[in-house]
């Protein structure tokens, strides 16, 4: 018994020494590979690009060398399609031997890569996709999220609107899992606070040519307000059509802030004015960190950074600071994730840290309204919900 333990110890020590001898020069020279799992084609290619440049900016701001190792980026196109996303993740892990993965815009891709990443035991920091279950029932010790969970974003909005006097609200979102999750979260809080759902519509994803028929139905329901979730092209279209149908002045428009994202609120212009939004970031947040960040971003790219960019920027900072804590070591991935759990900082959106209980971010949530700022439009913060944290939601912590 004793001898075997001793022999075992000896073997461990020898292996450790050998490992240290071989690993030392390697880790001094070999770069740390961060795999960007983002779409560069397909519907969300624009968001992928936004996150890519923001991640790079963070490398400049916080240093791309840790413990003598340079941080290099390797990329694979998810095409915003689940199967391509899975192939991209496999490429980053198997071929490029990435130490950390960062990215994933679409919830479909996240669902597709979840099991694989979990099995491969490579840390993934999700920078957008908000599927509740990824930091809930289907949480993984290896998947952290710097962006948000759907529920985290809208949970506070229902009670807030009920209190603000909007008693009857009409819900609308594309007919897909994310859309339903966001609407359900809103409904829960809103109904509990005494609100009434005046009606709800779920246009089919991807083939809606025209919001007209749905707006006509919304109008006929005569609600006090509409709570809708659209993003990207459809969001631009929706806000404009909403105004054209004369609804802007009669039925208050509200929704998760992607409806009037910094990426395109300028294009929506006056039609977006007065839209209530709830989100984890708006460019107008009044803090030194945010102002400095926006200035640097504007100098580089000539426009405001968006919430998408911030999520990637903070993810990069999370990676860098965790690496600094491990001295640049990446071999012990469990230690690396543990270091990520200990990272805390004040970023553009306020205090940032990862909740070790769910691996989801703990962050401020901002309720704001679109107003004219100078000669353009932007969201102005009305109220801040500090340090919003998800309940475990069925996540049983693995480590």
């Amino acid at each position, binding site marked *: 018994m004793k001898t075997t333990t001793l022999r075992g110890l000896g073997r461990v020590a020898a292996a450790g020494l050998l490992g240290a001898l071989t690993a030392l020069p390697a880790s001094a020279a070999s770069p740390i590979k961060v795999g960007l799992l983002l779409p*560069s*084609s397909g519907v969300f*290619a624009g968001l992928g690009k936004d996150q890519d440049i923001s991640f790079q900016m963070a490398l400049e701001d916080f240093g791309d060398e840790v413990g003598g190792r340079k941080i290099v980026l390797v990329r694979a196109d998810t095409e915003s399609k*689940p199967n391509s996303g*899975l192939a991209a993740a496999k490429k980053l892990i*198997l071929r490029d031997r990435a130490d950390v993965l960062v990215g994933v815009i679409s919830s*479909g891709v996240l*669902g*597709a890569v979840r*099991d694989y990443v979990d099995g491969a035991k490579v840390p993934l920091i999700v920078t957008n996709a908000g599927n509740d279950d990824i930091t809930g029932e289907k949480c993984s010790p290896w998947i952290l999220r710097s962006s948000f969970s759907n529920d985290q974003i809208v949970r506070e909005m229902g009670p807030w609107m009920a209190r603000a006097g909007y008693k009857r609200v009409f819900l609308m979102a594309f007919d897909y899992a994310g859309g339903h999750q966001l609407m359900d979260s809103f409904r829960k809080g809103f109904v509990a606070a005494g609100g009434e759902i005046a009606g709800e519509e779920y246009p089919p994803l991807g083939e809606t040519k025209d919001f007209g028929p749905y707006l006509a139905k919304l109008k006929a329901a005569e609600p006090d307000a509409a709570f809708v979730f659209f993003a990207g092209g459809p969001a631009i279209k929706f806000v404009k059509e909403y105004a054209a149908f004369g609804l802007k002045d009669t039925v208050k428009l509200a929704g998760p802030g992607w409806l009037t994202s910094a990426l395109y609120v300028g294009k929506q212009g006056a039609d977006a004015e007065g839209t209530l939004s709830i989100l984890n970031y708006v460019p107008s947040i009044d803090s030194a960190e945010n102002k400095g960040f926006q200035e640097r971003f504007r100098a580089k790219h000539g426009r405001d950074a968006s919430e998408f960019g911030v999520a990637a920027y903070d993810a990069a900072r999370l990676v860098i600071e965790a690496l600094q804590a491990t001295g640049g070591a990446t071999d012990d991935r469990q230690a690396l994730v543990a270091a990520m759990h200990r990272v805390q900082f004040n970023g553009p959106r306020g205090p940032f840290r990862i909740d070790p209980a769910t691996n989801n971010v703990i962050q401020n949530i901002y309720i704001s309204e679109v107003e004219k700022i100078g000669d353009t439009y932007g969201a102005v913060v009305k109220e801040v919900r500090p340090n919003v944290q998800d309940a475990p939601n069925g996540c049983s912590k693995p480590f």
Partner: protein
Amino acid sequence: MRRDPLQIPTVVLLVLAMAAWWHGADFYVHEVLLSEIALFAMLAMSLDLLVGYAGMVSLGHAAFLGIGAYVTAGLTVFLGWPVALAMPASALVAGLAALVVGSFVVRLGGVFFIMITLAIGQMVYAYFLKAREFGADDGMSGIPRLDLSFLGLDTADPAVFSAVLLLAALAVYLLLRVVVRSPYGATLVAIHQNEGRVRALGCPVHRYKLGAYVLAAAIAGLAGSLTTQHSSFVSPDLAFWTVSGEVLIMVILGGGGSIVGAAIGACAFLVLKHWLSAGESWEALGLPTFMADHWQLVMGSLFVLVVLVAADGIYGRARRLLRRDGPQAG
């Protein structure tokens, strides 16, 4: 029916090449490239039965891939069926779906057939996109792989599973070769050439076309089952029209009407796609790396070019060159 002296040497060569590649490959090639090639080769070969033999140009073949994938996903995840049972069920359900759909679409010829298959494919896609019981657009995960532990094989190993997939593709090839060389296959070719005359000769051509449609769909269903096992995941995208389109491109690229051509087309397409979508390849050519995101542009142009100047595809071209040199000039 037609002599094809190049067929056997090509297949032998292709099998040897795949075996050699598999032998020397790393995890990534096993898990991604070889597996994808095997899966798409099955799809392309089954589509070739329709396009190259029966003359039915379908732009909705991915619908049956999707159906097969969802059947396996549903049966294994919800009902806990063993994969070995879910696989034939996938082929069966896809075949039944084709029987229902096909009983009217096979009546339509040429361009109308293209349009209706495109529409039906999109209908299936739209259904899965909305089907909340199957996870709607998020799809389903946690689909197990075929259990071959009684053979001492661990299918979680990319090398093992890619070998399984390659062997499945070979089996599909052999099955389809038997079919196309049979009297039934010859009748399909005749129907392609002159449907009216085959009917006037007393053959219920719709039933024959339906048979091909069902068989091709069943194979696509099987490929769907294997696809979902491979990725342990299923989503509506599998049934999207671009997948059907890519498979059709593979068939045309490789050369329709030979079965092996479709497999070659799948190899060529996927190798080219992987190469084109890597920034390093463009860098090596001295071209801007942003083009790596635009491999579809290159693929689309290549496809147009193939249709324009080499409609018989890679294999057809090779066969023609051989025939020109050979004794059977004519």
